[in-house]
């Protein structure tokens, strides 16, 4: 515990739930198939919307004939993009702090032309989805195909057509950063390694597709939207703003969410269309994306081509790091978070674990006629990690250093904090060296190296790959708010003691399965002094919960958890004030433990919480005239002293590659990470493991493959490969705890650490395995084909 220990009251409470692997109370109904997902909602007079989508990546709409479709059975209405455009304001996905970023206005459906294959063009409102799909087939659209800008590499060439007439070129945004004397450092470096990293597009593939039910009530002029989203308050603002409504008349309700991972934190044109249609027809409208729609409309992620080099001294010290990043984001920057944040993160974070004095990065974000691209779990981190970890391993190979030693040489020592990285990232307290040592111990690194060497002599090629990472968590308004987005960085928690001694807790963050409600309940139960069974957590309702940002960017525990802890402390004080009056004693001499009011010294039970509540609610006449009980408490929290609470960690992959087939078998994966105070160890480990497997999917299988005409070639789950149980290894997790001093709780986030480091660990393990063949692969996913090409078995 650090010097701020006097503020860590919540960690020292009796009967604490902090640090305990309590099972999730809300998981039981999910295990019985009694969840409340959006597609389970059926409202009176509800219509289902089916979209006719553009079959072309870029084409002008010459005419639309919906006459035949209107006459199909079960069809209420057929609406074109142009018709719906009269009912809402378009949006523009730019933020002020990404200087120079541009994007054209986007409407709910294509108006004059479609800019990607899958963009919605016509909406059919039908009694059932099946009837809507029948009618969709008969919508006649005359298209004029336009030249397709598919390849990001040529998007900025002078002879490449410009997608949007309103823009000068296909450049969405660029950022250049330089510090130190990079050219001089490369000149004097003993070894300069250069690589091209080609990180393919992949996507979230939530098992529950994007889902929304909008219910506009003309009587009250009120809109209720049931949405599978990570950010209900943000969506409330968006719907109100672009439908010309008072924000107070819009309510967003989020019940169970079947996976999100950043996929469900953006404004999707088709979801907005469903809401606008509900207002237009004054009836509930449901839209559930089917799997094929998901592949062409859920945001895609990554898609970076990076040319990078690193200069290293003969003793392995990094002298300079330089890279150019090019990313294609589809035809629009997503709203309201923009599609520039990932490139921005890559510039900010690459090599951030290492002491680097000379650094130069250039990122270009370009428009193209492919599906939209935006922030997905671990935004930018996996790319930053592939660049730095790939280069440092290659440098080690050329210097004949062990990958562990070169990392140890360059990592920030554990006593160097607080400090700032070359790009200005402020690190409060990280634990790279402790984490590295713990990892080596956990995986028994030396024995593994010995095993690898013995097997290699027998023609079995195994590799060990390391990947150090840092993770952005607990973001302050520096992430979005300063850029003008109506996205809350603060979060609130309201606690209410009921008449039987139960505590109702409403929080601005949401639950998508990671266990938000459980950790909040653990914190509240601990800080108030009651059993978890007596805490009810309410999330996902803009009419009920305090204003908050929702759950993304690994912010739930560190930000909303802190608000909950502080609210719990104040509620406990308020309850003890009442108890003090009842017991005619100083409230400071009392405490609450296990739902009882006890003597703060010897713990003797004096009365129960239920009794205090009874008197406060039913017999306040017995109180002195100047005393009023206050048993509802709200507290808010936002990190102030650091823009982000950085965490750190290191992963290792152990794998075997078949040099004849190019197939990789993952044998084991390890992760040590440091998220500060751990509220629920099991839930943290499962966040890490789930995140790692998402990263392993990206490393090995997942790829949205487009042809030169901008047509997605693998938009089914049979063709787009996701990680399944049999290909995945067991994953061992361990932790170092460096608490943030920015909060009383000391918790940082853990949601994205796994995804950040996994691809780099696997790439490095593969290239370690391929060392005897002098072969390397730096294009992700690491497919058998690419491996065989590197081995010279296949020609590219």
């Amino acid at each position, binding site marked *: 515990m650090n010097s701020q220990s006097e503020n860590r009251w919540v960690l020292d409470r009796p009967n604490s739930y902090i640090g305990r692997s309590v*099972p*999730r109370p809300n*998981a*039981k109904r*999910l*295990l*019985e*198939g*009694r*969840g409340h*997902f959006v*597609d*389970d909602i059926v409202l009176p007079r509800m219509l289902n919307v089916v979209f006719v989508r553009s079959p072309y990546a870029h084409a002008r709409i010459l005419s639309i004939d919906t006459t035949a479709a209107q006459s*199909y*059975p079960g069809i209420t209405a057929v609406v074109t993009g142009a018709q719906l455009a009269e009912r809402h304001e378009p949006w523009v996905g730019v933020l002020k702090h990404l200087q120079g970023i541009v994007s054209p206005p986007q409407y709910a459906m294509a108006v004059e032309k479609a800019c990607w294959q899958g963009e919605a063009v016509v909406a059919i409102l039908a009694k*059932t989805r*099946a009837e809507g799909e*029948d009618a969709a*087939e*008969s919508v006649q659209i005359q298209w004029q195909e336009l030249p397709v800008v598919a390849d990001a590499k040529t998007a900025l060439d002078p002879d490449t057509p410009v997608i949007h007439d309103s823009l000068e070129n296909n450049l969405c945004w660029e950022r250049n950063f330089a510090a130190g004397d990079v050219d001089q450092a490369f000149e004097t470096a003993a070894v300069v390694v250069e690589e091209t990293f080609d990180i393919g597009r992949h996507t*979230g*593939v*939530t*098992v*529950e*597709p994007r889902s929304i039910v909008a219910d506009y009530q003309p009587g009250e002029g009120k809109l209720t939207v049931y949405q599978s989203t990570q950010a209900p308050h943000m969506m409330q603002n968006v719907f109100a703003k672009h439908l010309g409504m008072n924000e107070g008349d819009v309510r967003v309700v989020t019940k*169970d*969410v*079947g*996976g*999100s*991972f950043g996929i469900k934190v953006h404004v999707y044109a088709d979801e907005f269309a469903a809401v606008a249609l509900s207002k237009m027809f004054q009836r509930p409208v449901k839209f559930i994306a*089917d*799997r094929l729609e998901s592949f062409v409309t859920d945001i895609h992620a990554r898609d970076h081509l990076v040319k990078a080099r690193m200069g290293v001294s003969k003793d392995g010290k990094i002298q300079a790091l330089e890279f150019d990043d090019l990313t294609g984001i589809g035809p629009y920057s997503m709203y309201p978070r923009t599609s520039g944040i990932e490139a921005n993160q890559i510039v900010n974070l690459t090599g951030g674990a290492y002491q680097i004095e000379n650094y130069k990065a250039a990122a270009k974000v370009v428009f193209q006629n492919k599906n939209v691209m935006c922030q997905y779990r671990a935004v930018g981190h996996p790319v930053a990690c592939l660049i730095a970890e790939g280069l440092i391993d290659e440098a080690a190979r050329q210097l004949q250093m062990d990958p562990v030693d070169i990392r140890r040489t360059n990592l920030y020592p554990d006593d160097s904090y607080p400090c700032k990285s070359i790009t200005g990232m402020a690190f409060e307290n990280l634990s790279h060296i402790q984490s590295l040592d713990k990892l080596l111990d956990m995986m028994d690194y030396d024995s593994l190296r010995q095993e690898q060497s013995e097997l290699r002599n027998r023609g079995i090629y195994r590799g060990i790959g390391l990947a150090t990472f840092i993770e952005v968590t607990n973001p302050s308004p520096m992430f979005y708010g300063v850029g003008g987005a109506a996205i809350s960085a603060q979060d609130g928690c309201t606690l209410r003691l009921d008449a039987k001694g139960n505590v109702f807790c409403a929080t601005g963050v949401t639950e*998508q*399965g*990671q*266990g938000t409600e459980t950790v909040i309940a653990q914190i509240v139960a601990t800080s108030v002094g009651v059993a978890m069974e007596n805490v009810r957590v309410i999330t996902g309702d803009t009419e009920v919960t305090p204003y908050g940002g929702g759950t993304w960017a690994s912010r739930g525990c560190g930000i909303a958890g802190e608000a909950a802890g502080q609210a719990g402390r104040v509620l406990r004080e308020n309850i003890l004030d009442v108890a003090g009056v009842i017991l005619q004693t100083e409230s400071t001499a009392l405490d609450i433990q296990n739902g009882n009011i006890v003597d703060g010294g010897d713990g003797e039970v004096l009365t129960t919480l239920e009794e205090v509540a009874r008197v406060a609610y039913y017999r306040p006449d017995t109180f002195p005239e100047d005393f009023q009980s206050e048993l509802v408490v709200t507290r808010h929290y936002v990190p102030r002293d650091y823009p982000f609470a950085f965490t750190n960690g290191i992963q290792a992959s152990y794998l075997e590659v078949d040099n004849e087939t190019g197939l990789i078998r993952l044998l084991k994966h390890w992760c040590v990470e440091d998220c500060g105070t751990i509220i629920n160890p*099991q*839930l943290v480990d*499962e966040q890490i*493991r*789930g*995140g*790692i*497997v*998402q990263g392993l999917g990206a490393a090995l299988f997942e790829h949205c493959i487009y042809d030169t005409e901008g047509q997605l070639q693998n938009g*089914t*789950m*049979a063709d787009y490969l*996701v*990680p*399944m*149980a*049999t*290909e*995945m290894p*067991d*994953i061992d997790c361990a932790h170092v705890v460096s608490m943030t001093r920015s909060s009383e709780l000391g918790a940082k986030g853990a949601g994205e650490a*796994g995804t950040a480091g996994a691809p780099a660990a696997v790439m490095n393990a593969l290239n370690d395995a391929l060392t005897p063949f002098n072969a390397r692969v730096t294009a992700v996913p690491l497919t058998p084909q690419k491996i065989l090409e590197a081995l010279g078995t296949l020609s590219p």
Partner: protein
Amino acid sequence: MSDSLAVLKGDNNISLTVNGESISERVPVRRNLADFLRLDLGLTGTHVGCEHGVCGACTVRLDGKIVRSCLILAIQADGKRVDTIEGLSDDGYLEDLQASFHARNGLQCGFCTPGILLTAAELIETHPDADREKIREFLSGNYCRCTGYHAIVDAIESVVHSRQKKREL
């Protein structure tokens, strides 16, 4: 309606047993079993993830064997017995698996979970001594995006072990 859709026209009467209850309904011939369970019977515990037989979220039991209800038409279940997560929870069939998943956090968002539980139950019935590798192989038709599978494998393995101990007693 175009000719290509003509074969999909029409409704049929079906009678079947769902979670022990006798059901008689008139359904469109093209309605799949998943939609029938969800839309006609309100059994929303069966989830639809991909509608092309890959993700396994819609897994139910048909005459005691697990099937993907998105790949079966409701009319194909005529005269058969269907068991869903709701029925198999109510009758206690999944009790030890559910308890183990709960304790080990073998689920996060819960969307794939009904399908995983039914698959796990059949695995343990048909392979009572399954090891981790067998568990992973048997689960390879059920997609989970949240957990990374490790906790699911742990939860199932623990039930395998506890049932083994019960058999030995």
